[in-house]
């Protein structure tokens, strides 16, 4: 083999080494398009659905792709996006993701496709306007004491559903906030009424002294 032939072979090999990965890379960077649809408004504590559609550059659906839903979060000194749900696209390139609404205000939901060996990454955002206030955590473990950690209406609910049967006791659900903590209030009122009785006896001791003086 002449030097010229050898140099040509080396050059060809080098070209192949560079060209093949570039070709593969070019295939992976095939652009994609993502759209997201979320309800424009929701209530705090509600479960919402996001409909995400992933298509390629020609508008063809991309099936079996993993879509992540993220939302911004800040805690102490740090902040960033946290994954709140994930779903996989179907044959129509559509993924339905379910997520919990845990903060009030305007919540920016971002759908992210991370890309794969063929398709490039893409993302899309939408905002949900969330209204409402209240405590989202409800203790499930332990004894359910009406008046302490469960509604008194739950006693009358069928099959221990934990929901007040307002049909049986109309108005109980509305009264519930006022009834919260009644066992403690009752115990305290009982004890303090005895104290009040003793205070009354003390006044009578003083009055009895005046009678004796008279």
């Amino acid at each position, binding site marked *: 083999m002449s030097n010229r032939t050898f140099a040509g072979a080396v050059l060809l090999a080098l070209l192949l080494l560079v060209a093949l990965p570039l070709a593969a890379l070019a295939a992976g960077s095939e652009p994609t398009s993502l759209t997201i649809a979320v309800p424009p408004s929701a209530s705090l504590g509600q479960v919402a659905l996001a409909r995400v559609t992933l298509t390629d550059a020609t508008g063809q659906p991309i099936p079996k792709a993993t879509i992540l839903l993220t939302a911004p979060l800040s805690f102490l000194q740090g902040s960033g996006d946290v994954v709140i749900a994930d779903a996989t696209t179907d044959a129509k390139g559509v993924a339905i993701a379910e997520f919990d609404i845990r903060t009030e205000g305007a919540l920016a939901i971002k759908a992210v496709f991370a890309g794969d060996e063929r398709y490039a990454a893409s993302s899309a955002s939408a905002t949900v306007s969330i209204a409402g206030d209240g405590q989202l955590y409800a203790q499930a473990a332990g004894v359910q004491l009406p008046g302490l950690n469960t509604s008194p209406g739950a006693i009358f609910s069928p099959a221990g559903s934990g929901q007040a049967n307002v049909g049986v006791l109309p108005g109980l659900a509305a009264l519930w906030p006022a009834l919260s903590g009644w066992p403690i209030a009752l115990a305290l009122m009982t*004890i303090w009424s005895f*104290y009040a009785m*003793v*205070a009354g*006896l003390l006044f009578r*001791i*003083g009055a009895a002294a005046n009678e004796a003086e008279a």
Partner: protein
Amino acid sequence: MEAVTGAGGHAIPAARPHAVDGAHAAPGVTPAWRARLEERGLAPLARTGARYWLWIGFLLAVIGWALHAYVTQLENGLIVTGLRDRISWGVYIASFVFFIGISHAGTLLSAILRVTRARWQMSVTRMAEFITVVALMVGALFPFIDMGRVDRILNLVQFGRWQSPLLWDIFAITTYLTGSTLYLYLPLIPDFALARDRLGPTAPAWRRATYRLAALGWRGTPAQRRLLDRAMTVMMCVIIPVAVSVHTVVSWIFSMTLRVAFNTTVFGPYFVAGAIFSGVAAIILLMAVLRKLLHLEEYITHKQFLFLGYLLGAFTLIMTYFNLTEYVTHGYKMEAGVAFHFTQLMVGPFEPLFLFYWICGIGIPGLIMLFPRTRTIAGIVTAAGLVVVAMWVERFLLVVAGFRVPLMAYEPSDYAPTWVEWSILAGAFALFALLISVFAKLFPVISIWEVVEHRGPELGEAAPAAAAPGRRAPLPQRAGRA
């Protein structure tokens, strides 16, 4: 009017007949015996020596240092303590449980003994009630001290939740403190009247005015006696369940959290038993100190020490029972974290404190009360002193070892109290001693009228001689109603 001379030479006029009714005196009460009792009981109110002021000055100095430590903590935050995120309860909460515990025995014991009409206790009920009120006042400070941001205290009211044992605890302690104060005050009324009538013009005007006001015009009329008796009966019956509930609620602060070491159903009765155990020991110690300082040997005899010592001895067995029940049931199941907890307690970093609790808090006091030879006043006081220290250690172990069990897969933390925490603890004990000292100057430490009417001299016992420290009086025939 007959007059007797107080300890300091101040003339204490004799009682007007209607202040403490002589017609209701117990058998064996002679005018001379009664006059001596009144003189002894009222002497601390009539005279204050230099040693008292020196003692008060010392206590104020310790409290001042503790305030300096607390200001340091307020300025810098809890970082100046040994408390961190993993062991966030330490000396402060251990001391809170300890003081609430010793507050227990006072009123509870006094009420139970009054209900059962045990005559022997009449001379010590007042001291027991002092301890309850004072220990509650001191103990209730600790949760506030433990708060890094005490300025947020109103959040407890604003955002407090009925479901939280912390809120229950606030209600329980305030209710118990109010009830205990009422229960302390009721039997004081006839003694206030006695002080009003017998502290002559040599007493400061403010003091005479206070006694006149506090006595509610007590003349000992049949109507007044009937009303006082009814009020005391109501409070006796109410305060017993309130006292039991308070320490049960304190135990729930622990046992209702998801921590391995606190995951037990015996905590309620265990805390109540521990509270009575430490409270009885505290009463014995206070009895010994006041008996010596105020020369009350005739009224606080070996019998009071012995009966309370019996109670102490019985509770060493009850505490053993509760502890063994907990160790066996936990140890048999050995759920995740229990092995770590038992190891750290028994052969780990807490081993010395654990052994101290068992040997000095349970073993030695139990043995002292087991043998007649060691059931002397000195022996019983020694046992009580050991129990008080050991019960503080037990509270410390409960809190700190409990919090040290990791909740997740992280290395267990260590906790060492800093000078700030030790200083505040010293200040708390100084405040406790200060309040007792002030109470002893303002109120008769013996319920004089009850001793006159319900107890009288201890017949068959040459009191002053038999009560000498180290000597053992004959065993009473009927414990509890002698």
